[in-house]
């Protein structure tokens, strides 16, 4: 039986001018792994909400057409009934946990199905092991980081082993290691249990190689439905921002067909003899010509915009989160903070912004330090956008037309632009800190953010970005600091840190084996073209 059937579905949110979904029809068969993508506000999340029954039962609005999940019509069955067929994880993990402890959260869906204590305990143990959250079972959910919360919410969606799982950017707060593990886990569930997966994702490079099918939404309409390779060809023609870095690399190099992942790309390059023709990757520790090697344990520089010296911080139940951290950012410099979930990135930002104080050590700043936390909506307290920021700031943020709207009605990208505008309203900062600013952003929005950060850095503001997004770090940062276990373990230019690795590395660098450093797909494409010309030279 088809696990998800959407027939001519149109939906309009209450009070909205345009439909969020317009005549969408599609089917997902048992055991299919389907990726749903599209630019921001294209209707991806709404489609997922329709599939789990929240549209229209929770959101109201006008709906036409029909959605059946495991044979249950969503107009006649509440989301609770559909939960037996479809496990759902929505975008914001903060709203996805309802119990007090991690163990209780994972047990809750099983208890709701009427399973006995031993079956519940076994189910909890298995999903906790699969997601690597076994050590969190006794922890209160209020003490978890964003990434940990996301894994717990994902566990609650998977714990009942439903025949269909609906996931809205499940890896958006995960580190590259956990994100890769998650995609592999979904593939395993899909292959071993025949679980159908409908995965909404902006960053296709993570999941395209595992997908059986890709659907693309554009302004609420189904723009494409087909195999991953065909989707990349379609995107090159119709929607270039949806191309993966690997596809852009191949396009620039003039190679076909566009690869769906690193493995396929390397195989193609190997077949063309290009992998051996590329210049060797710079040895680890070699900063390259004209670049200064930065010491890990240097003292905070007196000219730093903001710095921490020998900073220790512990949290109840989590022990030492930061351990003797020496860190600083110079005026006009952009530093990317990277590392696994729980490595201490957000804690270090809070310390630098003065939200927390170190147990030992010191934090110094040459002026105001502002921090843009993970959820920009937390900064927006007024009833209308025009009351949040002045006309000039709104115009700079491209929100001049939105002055009369409620901040809650803005898209994620717009909220972030507004929150960033608020940061620039007061005394000019010595340093601006951003925590996971590209979460849920498409490539176009990410490009806009990079431009704004560059402009700020050019005006002398020191910028620190905590991110899992290696592509962002590669194009925006002057320096990448890799944290592990609460202390920096690498501190060097992106070309060194983001090349030659398995996880903390751009897709282009992984394909090229680190040749050319952490280069952009376009730089990598030029490198390949150079290698090809050498290859054909007599």
């Amino acid at each position, binding site marked *: 039986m088809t696990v998800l059937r959407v027939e001519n579905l149109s939906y309009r949110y209450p009070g909205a001018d345009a439909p969020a979904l317009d005549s969408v029809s599609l089917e997902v068969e048992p055991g299919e792994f389907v990726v749903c993508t599209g630019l921001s506000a294209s209707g991806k999340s709404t489609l997922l909400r329709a599939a789990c029954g929240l549209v229209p039962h929770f959101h109201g609005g006008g709906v036409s057409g029909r959605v059946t999940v495991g044979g249950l019509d969503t107009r006649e069955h509440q989301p609770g009934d559909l939960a037996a067929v479809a496990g759902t994880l929505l975008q914001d993990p903060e709203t996805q946990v309802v119990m007090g402890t991690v163990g209780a959260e994972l047990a809750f869906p099983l208890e709701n199905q009427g399973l006995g*204590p031993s079956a519940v305990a076994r189910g909890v143990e298995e999903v906790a092991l699969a997601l690597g959250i076994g050590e969190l079972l006794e922890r209160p959910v209020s003490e978890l980081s964003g990434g940990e919360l996301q894994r717990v919410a994902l566990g609650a969606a998977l714990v009942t082993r439903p025949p269909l799982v609906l996931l809205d950017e499940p890896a958006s707060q995960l580190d590259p290691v956990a994100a890769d593990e998650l995609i592999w886990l979904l593939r395993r569930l899909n292959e071993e249990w025949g679980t159908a997966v409908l995965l909404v994702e902006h960053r296709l490079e993570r999941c395209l190689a595992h997908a059986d099918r890709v659907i693309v939404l554009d302004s609420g309409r189904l723009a494409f439905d087909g195999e991953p390779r065909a989707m990349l060809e379609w995107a090159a023609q119709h929607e270039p921002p949806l191309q993966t870095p690997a596809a852009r690399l191949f396009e620039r190099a003039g190679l076909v067909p566009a690869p769906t992942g690193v493995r396929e790309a390397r195989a193609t390059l190997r077949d063309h003899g290009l992998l051996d023709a590329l210049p060797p990757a710079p040895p680890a520790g070699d900063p390259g010509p004209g670049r200064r090697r930065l010491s890990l344990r240097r003292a905070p520089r007196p000219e730093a915009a903001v710095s921490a010296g020998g900073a220790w911080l512990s949290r109840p139940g989590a022990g030492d989160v930061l351990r003797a951290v020496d860190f600083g950012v110079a005026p006009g410099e952009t530093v990317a903070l990277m590392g696994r979930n729980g490595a201490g990135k957000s804690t270090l930002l809070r310390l630098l912004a003065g939200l927390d104080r170190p147990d030992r050590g010191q934090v110094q700043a040459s002026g105001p330090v502002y921090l843009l936390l993970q959820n920009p909506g937390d900064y927006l307290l007024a009833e209308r956008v025009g009351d949040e920021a002045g006309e000039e700031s709104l115009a700079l943020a491209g929100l001049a037309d939105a002055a009369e709207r409620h901040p809650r009605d803005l898209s994620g990208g717009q909220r972030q632009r507004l929150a960033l505008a608020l940061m620039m309203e007061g005394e000019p900062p010595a340093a601006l800190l951003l925590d996971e600013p590209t979460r849920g952003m498409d490539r176009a929005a990410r490009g806009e953010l990079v431009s704004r950060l560059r402009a700020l850095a050019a005006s002398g503001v020191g910028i620190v970005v905590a991110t899992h997004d290696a592509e962002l770090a590669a194009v925006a940062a002057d320096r990448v600091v890799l944290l592990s276990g609460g202390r920096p373990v690498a501190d060097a230019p992106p070309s060194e840190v983001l090349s030659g690795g398995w996880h903390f590395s751009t897709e282009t660098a992984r394909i090229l084996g680190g040749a050319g450093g952490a280069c952009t797909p376009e730089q990598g494409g030029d490198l390949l073209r150079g290698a090809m010309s050498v290859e054909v030279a007599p």
Partner: protein
Amino acid sequence: MRPPVALGPLGGARAALAASWGLLLVAFALVWSSPIVLVAVGLAVAASAALCGVGGDLARAARFSVPLVVTMALINALVVRDGETVIWRFGELPVAGQVDLTAEALAYGLVLGLRIVVIVSAFALLVAVVDADEVLRKMRRPAFRSALTATLATRMAGVLTRDARRMNDARRARPAADGPGRMALVQAVATGALDRAVDVAATLELRGYATRGPVVAGREPWSRDDQAVAASALMLAALMAWGVVSEVASLQPYPTFSMDAGVVEAAFAAALFVVAVLPLALVVREGRRR
């Protein structure tokens, strides 16, 4: 699955028992207006909170509710015109007409304020110590919609607290000049409460809460905490029944303020405090000995 650290005898007892115990104290505060009884309930709540190690939570809740005492006293004094003892004549005011401030209305306003403080404190104690997860599981059995409402009520305190904490961090992390004040933050959390309630309700449904499948409960033996709280609750219920039948500690606010304040009322209030607190104190003492 109980929280890793039980908060005193109330936190260690079954959620249904602890919630019943707390709701009985709230019922005392609702049934009796006598300040003697209200003070006894308030002291019982404070002593129990201290025994459970959540005195700080209670103090914060009480501080939040104190302005309500003043507000209630003023509103009652200005609106109610039933008292005989006029202490100030405001004369003819636009819209309100003839306004006289009477001692009875002022006194009863203070009593109403005290009642609010006691009830808020009792609920704060329940929120701090009762395992909300267990309450949520218990609420699956009754009619779904009312269960969902009750569940949301128990979950929202935590959700809104987390929201307020995040928003406060955001407020501190942005430029100070012209930034929003604490009142703007409180207002934003309050106005966002409905949206957040919808979010939480949606998640509950997505986890199958509405399916009303069979509830399989493990048979746990009664702990000493369970026994102490159950004994206390039973005695409180018996005392309440006796008090209602005997019409003890009655209060007549108007036209002249009069209330029973004899030996019986003092004994009633003392008994209320003792049966509410003593069983819990005995369990705590025994725990310390071991």
